[in-house]
């Protein structure tokens, strides 16, 4: 079992990185200096073994299948890694003069144009660092739009009950009241219920399409028309864009604002929880509120950062973009082109329907329609029959080297499992997943109490979350402490 870095090392170990500069007190008065620096010193071999060993205790796309609904865990191409490591990109300072950054600016501009075309928007900002960051950016834009058009009193945000938690959280951050709209038995947002909530206070309606049940909101035109008629704006959460790239555009559906997740749809690796990139797109009405600076192309063909955006909400990040993440997404787009991107979306939908067809005999699939790039199923019946829950199935998958699907969300489906295979998985992988699900369901019937013991073969088994939660609330257990 790996020890912590702070339980290893010894003073003085480590390489010599610089010529000895002497003590800090040669340059600064002692009153400005810290009294001690209680970090460990490690020999490089300790660092090597420590992090290599840690890496062996992780699932990853390069080692495991992740059928995680709404996360789009597709393969992360290594071409993207190679180009993102070019010194011409990594060594470029954000305050470099525009004339010396023409390659980077050209890439950003190309990216912005491509995304605008793909999603039916007028302009994009590549500034936001992640999806949630893109969401709050869009909310700030909406708020400014209403303030500037004398409608600052509008403060109602409509969100389907299947929405991702970041949606209401982002809306609340700008002071919007959040109203949840129920879903129908067909798994779509209840249009009548939504319309009944529209009034002069309506600011934004946040939706994703297909929704988090994996179903296309067929009434989307009806919805966007109604929201616009009430004076509200439509915001598209791009988490499920992998079902639609090259097939249909949010702009054509009537959305005014959207965010994308480059680390989902555009193959940028998840990195264990970031960094991502969450570009925000806007239509002609709202483009002027996008964060600044924006990349523009001058008359002479050169590229520049433009700060002359009088109506911009301002910057939302310290610098211009998660550039090295955008480089990866750009590489992904240029090797695919429109045709390739469309085909990816189609095959993502194929793979999801394939898995759905193969497991619907053992887990309840609550909606009859074909799904898009993801689908939900329920272990509620299994729970009633055997006491075994979705959580136990998920832990059983880990033993088979398969990451658990998204669980217990959306809340409209009890004991929910949300499954999104993505388009880069082979048929063999999908067949193996289905077979594993069948085996686990069988085990649930044959030997239900054994399921609570799973997983058995992972580096650690089920952890005591209650204990750490109690400690953490007191500020304990969140870091190593010296004795």
């Amino acid at each position, binding site marked *: 079992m790996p020890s912590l870095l702070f339980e290893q090392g010894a003073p003085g170990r480590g390489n010599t990185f610089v010529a000895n500069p002497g003590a800090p007190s040669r340059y600064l008065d002692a009153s400005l200096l810290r009294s001690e620096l209680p970090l460990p010193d490690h020999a490089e071999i300790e660092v090597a073994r420590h992090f290599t060993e840690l890496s062996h205790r992780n699932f990853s796309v390069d080692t495991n299948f992740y059928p995680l609904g709404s996360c789009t865990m597709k393969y992360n191409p290594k071409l993207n890694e190679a180009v993102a490591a070019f010194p011409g990109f990594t060594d470029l300072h954000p305050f470099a003069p525009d004339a010396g950054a023409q390659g980077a600016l050209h890439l950003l501009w190309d990216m912005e144009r491509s995304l605008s075309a793909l999603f039916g928007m007028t302009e994009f900002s590549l500034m936001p660092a992640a999806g949630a960051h893109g969401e709050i950016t869009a909310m700030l834009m909406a708020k400014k739009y209403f303030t500037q058009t004398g409608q600052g009193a509008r403060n109602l945000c409509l969100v389907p009950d299947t929405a991702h938690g970041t949606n209401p959280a982002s809306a609340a951050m700008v002071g919007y009241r959040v109203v949840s709209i129920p879903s129908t038995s067909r798994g779509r947002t209840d249009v009548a219920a939504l319309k009944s909530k529209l009034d002069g206070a309506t600011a934004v309606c946040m939706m994703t399409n297909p929704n988090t049940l994996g179903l296309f909101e067929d009434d989307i035109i009806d919805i966007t028309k109604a929201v616009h008629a009430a004076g509200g704006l439509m915001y598209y959460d791009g988490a499920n864009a992998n079902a639609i790239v090259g097939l249909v555009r949010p702009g054509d559906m009537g959305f005014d604002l959207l965010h994308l997740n480059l680390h989902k749809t555009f193959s940028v690796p998840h990195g264990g929880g970031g960094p991502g990139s969450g570009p925000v797109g806007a239509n002609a009405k709202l483009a002027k509120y996008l964060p600044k600076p924006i990349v523009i192309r001058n008359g002479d063909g050169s590229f520049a950062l433009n700060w002359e955006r009088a109506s911009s909400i301002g910057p939302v990040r310290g610098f211009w973009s998660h550039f090295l993440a955008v480089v990866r997404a750009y590489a992904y787009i240029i090797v695919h082109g429109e045709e390739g991107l469309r085909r990816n979306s189609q095959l993502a939908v194929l793979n999801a329907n394939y898995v759905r067809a193969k497991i619907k005999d053992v887990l309840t699939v609550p909606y009859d329609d074909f799904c898009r790039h993801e689908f939900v199923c329920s272990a509620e019946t299994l729970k009633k029959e055997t006491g075994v829950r979705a959580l136990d199935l998920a832990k059983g998958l880990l033993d088979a080297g398969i990451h658990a699907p998204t669980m*217990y969300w959306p809340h409209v489906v009890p004991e929910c499992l949300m499954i999104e295979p993505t388009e880069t998985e082979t048929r063999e992988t999908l067949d193996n997943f289905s077979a594993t699900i069948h085996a686990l369901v069988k085990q649930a019937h044959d030997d239900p109490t054994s399921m609570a013991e799973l997983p058995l073969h992972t580096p650690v088994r089920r952890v005591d*979350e*209650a204990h750490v*939660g*109690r400690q*953490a*609330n007191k500020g304990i257990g969140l870091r190593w402490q010296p004795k």
Partner: protein
Amino acid sequence: MAQPTDRLYTKEHEWVKIDGANAVVGITDYAQSSLGDIVYVEMPKPGVAVERGKPVGVVESVKAVSDIYAPVSGTIVEVNAAVEEDQTKVNSDPYGEGWLVKLKLADADKTGLMDAGAYEELVKSL
């Protein structure tokens, strides 16, 4: 666990035990069981006035956070220090040692409160 008959209940799964001008408040067995292992309890401090039906605090478990609504109107007199130290009491003894706050009643209004039998019916229907 059968619901104790010496107290009243709300549909938000709180209980209130009234004794003259004072009351003790906690959450029911159904609530603690739904939440799972409780890791944090936050209640208003002594001296704070609370209004019936309004959220006054939270009880948090590993997977969920539950707002606690005041079942009656009054002023907080005491917060259960033992529970602040050890939240497991709310799970193991929700009607006894797991009480949350004691308060001084502002009025005798019992709107929204039901007896043990009615609450039992409610829980059965869920």
